[in-house]
């Protein structure tokens, strides 16, 4: 009897301790993170600005940085559509008052830019700090991020040209953000607790309610949309995207010749793709930088072109094709750079 109750006591204590205190449950596994380690990786910034680093930056400084590090892909005014949807535009002074971007409901917006959507300024700070510039993420210091964001806010006509953004006044920006009231969580697609229970949303209640009708479910079949002709061929030869045996064949969309096996990708093309060159250069089309064929026609009669271009690609730079700079490509081996430039100068095939 005595022993029995003692066991119960031990169990009760153990039970209580697992709920509240137990950790380090797997002997020898994992170790405590040092404060420096946590600081190095924990850079996220929340909507309530938890995690926001101290610092500041002016619109002027931001413009300088933006032109140097961002404009090549996003355009000098954050308006470019070439690499990604525009960052800036589509918001009005009136939206800043209401906190709802009117163009979103009126259908007047040609494009949803970043600032037409975002409801939390922390999001933009956090994202630029962690991920931009796209080819050199995490290279910006907090002051750089403040400055660049100040410039973007100025482009959005939210702050004047002499504005300095800092950890002190970023909260004021939140209060005038054009789409700050533009989000709803009143839906059933959050997979945690509902808002009523301190979480998000309506607790998983779906917004459509079809029935599994089996017989004579409707009187007519309305085909609302069919595949447009251009879309039938826009994805290449569909015959080649299916097995040549089995219950069906791919439909021949391009005709005989095109159905031949696609040409193998050259090793140099693969190298250019792997190293990000194709993000900015097309073989026949300008993207951010000139097309390879334009490069070829400019240099084809110059005997020293190869060496000069290798040096240029390695160091990066601007001015030959316009004001947009090419970032440095020092991470590539010299022999690989040579291979790439040789390939470009022989037609990029």
């Amino acid at each position, binding site marked *: 009897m005595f022993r029995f109750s003692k066991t119960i006591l031990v169990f009760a204590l153990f039970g209580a301790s697992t709920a509240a205190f137990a950790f380090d449950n797997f002997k020898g596994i994992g170790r405590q993170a040092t404060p420096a380690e946590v600081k190095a990786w924990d850079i996220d910034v929340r909507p309530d600005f938890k995690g926001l680093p101290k610092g500041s930056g002016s619109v002027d400084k931001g413009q300088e940085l933006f032109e140097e590090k961002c404009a090549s892909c996003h355009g000098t005014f954050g308006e470019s559509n070439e690499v990604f949807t525009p960052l800036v535009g589509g918001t009005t002074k009136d939206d800043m008052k209401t906190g709802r971007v009117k163009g979103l409901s009126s259908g007047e917006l040609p494009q949803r830019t970043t600032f037409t959507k975002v409801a939390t300024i922390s999001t933009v700070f956090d994202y630029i700090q962690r991920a931009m510039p*796209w080819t050199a993420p995490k290279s910006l210091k907090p002051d750089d991020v403040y400055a660049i964001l100040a410039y973007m806010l100025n482009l959005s006509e939210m702050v004047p040209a002499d504005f300095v953004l800092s950890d002190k006044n970023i909260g004021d920006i939140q209060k005038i953000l054009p789409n700050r009231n533009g989000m709803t969580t009143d839906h059933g697609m959050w997979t945690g607790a509902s808002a009523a229970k301190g979480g998000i949303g309506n607790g998983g209640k779906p917004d*459509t309610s079809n029935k*599994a009708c089996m017989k004579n479910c409707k009187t007519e079949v309305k085909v609302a949309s069919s595949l447009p002709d251009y879309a039938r061929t826009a994805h290449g030869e569909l015959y080649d995207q299916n097995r040549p045996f089995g219950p*069906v064949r791919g*439909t021949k969309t391009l005709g005989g010749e095109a159905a031949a096996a696609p040409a193998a990708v050259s090793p140099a093309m693969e190298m250019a793709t792997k190293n990000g060159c194709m993000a900015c250069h097309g073989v026949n089309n300008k993207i951010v930088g000139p097309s390879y064929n334009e490069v070829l026609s400019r240099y084809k009669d110059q005997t020293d072109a190869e060496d000069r271009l290798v040096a240029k690609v390695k160091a990066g730079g601007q001015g030959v094709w316009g004001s947009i700079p090419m970032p440095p490509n020092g991470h590539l081996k010299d022999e690989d750079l040579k291979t790439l430039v040789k390939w470009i100068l022989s037609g990029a095939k």
Partner: protein
Amino acid sequence: MGDIVKQPGRLRPAPENFLSEDQVKAVATGRRDFLRKSFLAAGAAMAAPMVARASEGDINILENPAWTTSLGLPVATNPYGVPSKYESQLLRRESPGLARVGGASVSFAPLQGLFGIITPSGLHFERHHQGWHDIDPSKHRLMVNGSDDSLLKKPKVYTLDELMRMPSASRIHFIECGANTGLEWGNVAVPTVQYTHGMLSCSEFTGVPLKHLLEDCGVDYKKARYVLAEGADGSSMTRTIPMEMVESGEVLVAYGQNGEMLRPENGYPLRLVVPGVQGVSWVKWLRRIEVGDKPYATKDEAVHYIDLMPSGLHRQYSSVQEAKSVITTPSGGQTLLDQGFYNVSGLAWSGRGRIKQVDVSFDGGINWKTARLEGPIQNKALTRFNINWVWDGKPAILQSRAMDETGFVQPSYGQLRAVRGTKSIYHNNAIQSWKVIESGEVSNVQVL
């Protein structure tokens, strides 16, 4: 076509199995010497007897082929096996014009030719935001910390060596990008099921339930109701995950995929598995887990992966992939060979649990028949369905409609648009329609 039809041992027409394109054309245009010509090329001495024998039956039966009359290749010729050289058609493909740069793009899985429910790892769809890397596992770390010290007793760091010593679980789950079928919200835009539904894959994942790690760090579940997952790539992708899912034990820190390690494109050496939730939350190259008391509104839950409603409001933190299905055979961009019997086959899935029933219509949704589900039916996994069909050569519109264990039935386009309009981009789970015309060609249409 008379000669072809009379040749024994083969079904009509499917001539490409037996005769080359040119041979078929030669027959069609009445050039009767086609057989002799091609056999001469193959070997003059053999030609005459083979032509003679062709009338007795299928040469593929009457003449033993090389693989039956010679020695094959030794073991480990391919130390890591690869598909047959005849299987060059089913590849991950991009949709032209969808994204402007390959590092922030999508490649779609070729659902039109896959069987069962497991996606071969090399054909798993891809979505990267800042390119992919092949990360050195000996240098990869997983950090678990709290948004402040009161939420977690002890922030910890784990190596792969350590994670792979911990209790593991292996489970089959689908992963679908929130933007799957997103091109089709307003109207038909793409020709095949690869491009309509191919941001969908299903694998067996192996890893450590995240719950074990959080508890090992002394998480305070009372205060910490959200988890931030962060990747080690340039984008350091971040998403907010509800603690309820973690506590249920279903969220895994996975290293295994289909019996081997994850593929680099799918997050090697570590990714989060968040069953039933859109792919963007399954953070790849996972390097950090933070527990917090509030959601994080990261870029991919505050600027993207938000659903635009007709009111102009965006739905934020929409996460679950609701019940959905699609017929994969026959599907858009395919042509039926002939009238007669077909096994119509497709996939159904739900982020809210198991699939209970799939119905198929051959008349655009007027009448429906219940399909066979191939078991075992798994939680938040693809489920394969099949149904018999005899095509009479007349036009038809094929549809499938999934019901999950909650009783939720996949909506029609009309029903979905009535609530969400046409600009939402994300979470399009409408019933897919494939139209079959007399020629046997199948194409993508939308029925309200």
